[in-house]
């Protein structure tokens, strides 16, 4: 019996396949996005920006008239869609990672402070959250798009501005209940300082939730970025983004469906994968469930 309760090495736990086990497919999809983002220029079959009007609107390889040199076909300017999706992955992954790390950090710090200190600190931060949440993000994005130089930095800024509240609210609520847990009180009784209470008792107990929310939001942020770029508020040509590809392709939906379908599938796959991985993380990182 004593043997059975000994924790297994975390690596084994992470790789173990079982019911509700590791979502290999979802993880592979996200890994593929990351590989494309890192190695894009070296693995893409063509230059994403190369225009070849003579090859415009070549259908995907498996359709009549398609060619193996353009596996997913070409767009209205003859640019290779697979290469553009690979190039777009870099933008999506970049924006999503920066935006999530920044909004997660800002949200977590403010949320912990609000939940732990309460009183005036809590009132100020909570009102800030309320105000931020009551502002719809698309008009906000339009405002900043008019004021700030467009580009990835602006997109990240807008996403952080509209996403930190999620983390702050979640963390605040959790810390509000953690604060009343006996182990936090007993840490104080033992003479543990406030910074240590934060990083040893509060942060690890909200970290899992943060990680789950971050993974789930990876997909949502990609969709948001695509939406901004679709509206022309985000990534500007000649930089490639999945949302921008949708915007470019929608005029040709009746003659060349693959222009809009291929980046759409990429967005959907990335979003779905991040949701599946998030679900799995939520189940796995809970130490109470882990023993089952």
């Amino acid at each position, binding site marked *: 019996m004593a043997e059975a*309760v000994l*924790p297994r090495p975390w690596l084994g736990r992470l790789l173990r396949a079982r019911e509700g086990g590791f979502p290999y497919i979802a993880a592979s999809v996200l890994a593929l996005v990351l590989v494309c983002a890192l190695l894009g220029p070296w693995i893409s079959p063509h230059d994403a920006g190369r225009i070849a009007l003579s090859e415009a609107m070549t259908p995907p390889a498996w359709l009549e008239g398609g060619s193996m040199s353009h596996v997913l076909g070409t767009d209205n300017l003859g640019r290779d869609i697979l290469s553009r999706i690979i190039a777009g992955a870099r933008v999506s992954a970049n924006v999503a990672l920066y935006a999530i790390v920044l909004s997660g950090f800002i949200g977590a710090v403010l949320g912990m402070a609000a939940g732990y200190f309460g009183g005036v600190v809590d009132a100020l931060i909570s009102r800030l959250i309320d105000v931020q949440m009551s502002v719809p993000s698309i008009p906000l994005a339009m405002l900043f798009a008019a004021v700030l130089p467009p580009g990835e930095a602006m997109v990240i800024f807008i996403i952080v501005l509209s996403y930190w509240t999620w983390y702050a609210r979640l963390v605040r609520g959790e810390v509000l209940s953690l604060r009343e*847990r006996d*182990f936090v009180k007993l840490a104080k*009784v033992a003479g*543990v300082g406030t910074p240590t209470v934060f990083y040893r008792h509060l942060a690890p107990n909200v970290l899992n939730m943060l990680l789950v929310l971050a993974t789930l939001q990876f997909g949502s942020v990609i969709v948001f970025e695509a939406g901004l770029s679709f509206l022309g508020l985000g990534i500007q040509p000649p930089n490639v983004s999945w949302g921008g590809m949708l915007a470019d392709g929608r005029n040709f939906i009746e003659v060349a469906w693959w222009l809009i379908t291929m980046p759409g599938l990429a967005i959907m796959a990335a979003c779905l994968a991040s949701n599946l991985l998030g679900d799995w993380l939520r189940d796995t990182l809970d130490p109470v469930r882990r023993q089952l």
Partner: protein
Amino acid sequence: MTVLLSLEDAACHFRTRGGTLKAVDGVTLTVARGETFALVGESGCGKSTLATLILKLNPLSGGRITFAGEDVGGLRGRAAKRYRSRVQAVFQDPYSSLNPRLKVRTILAEPLLAHGAPRGEVTAKVRRVLSLVGLAPNAAGLYPHEFSGGQRQRIAIARALILEPDLVVLDEPISALDVSIRAQILNLLQDLQTELGLTYLLIAHDLALVEHVADRVAVMYLGQIVEVGDKVEVFDNPRHPYTQALLGAVPRPDPRAPRASGQVHGEIASPLEPPSGCRFHPRCPHAMDACRRTPPSFVKTGEHTASCHLLAPR
């Protein structure tokens, strides 16, 4: 008898939307070094809030607390930290009192490190305290969820003892445990007290437990102490009607035993609007006019004190 802890007119008030909640309102008591002092009373009478005052988790709203001659409320910085090392606590729920994300080793080392113990000493001390509470040394490498409730409470006790405190506040230390392991934990606590010369402030609602372990008993009602004295005195010769009712409510394993007299009806009053005069008068079977008007003062006979108008000399 040397006094270790004394409270003079200690109060803890909370400002709420409904007014000022007087959770603890003018409590005076002394705890002698080496004794087990029990605080009993029904839910919501302020026992646990009183503990938070002693543990400096809530600020005093009035009065003073003195520990080993020092004014606890005035302690700042280094002195406050030293006080923290001398007064520790064990709480009721061993599932809430251990951080689920930390290994037992970290949980036990934390108080030591907070007080600047050299890292080299920590491992040895953790091992020693584990054996003190009857756990194997390899427990240090496990997480709390890998233990049963009784074992977790042993870990909680180990954490309270690792700083070698003088006073341990035991807030319902066994009431969340299975009946079958209560005796084990209780015996452990008593053995540790003898071995380490600890002083216990025991907060409990289980009168049988109190009768078993306490040296002196204080009975609390609605934020105030109504009776305090030697355990045998209080249990055998309760003076306050509330104490009498409390003791009368203990079920006796004898179906033919006569029912206790002086039963109390109704609910404990709200600490937002405590009754005038004696706080117990709306429920007291002996309530008189004086009880409604003036708060009773303490009447002392030997080492036994109670606050009731019935006891006042006429």
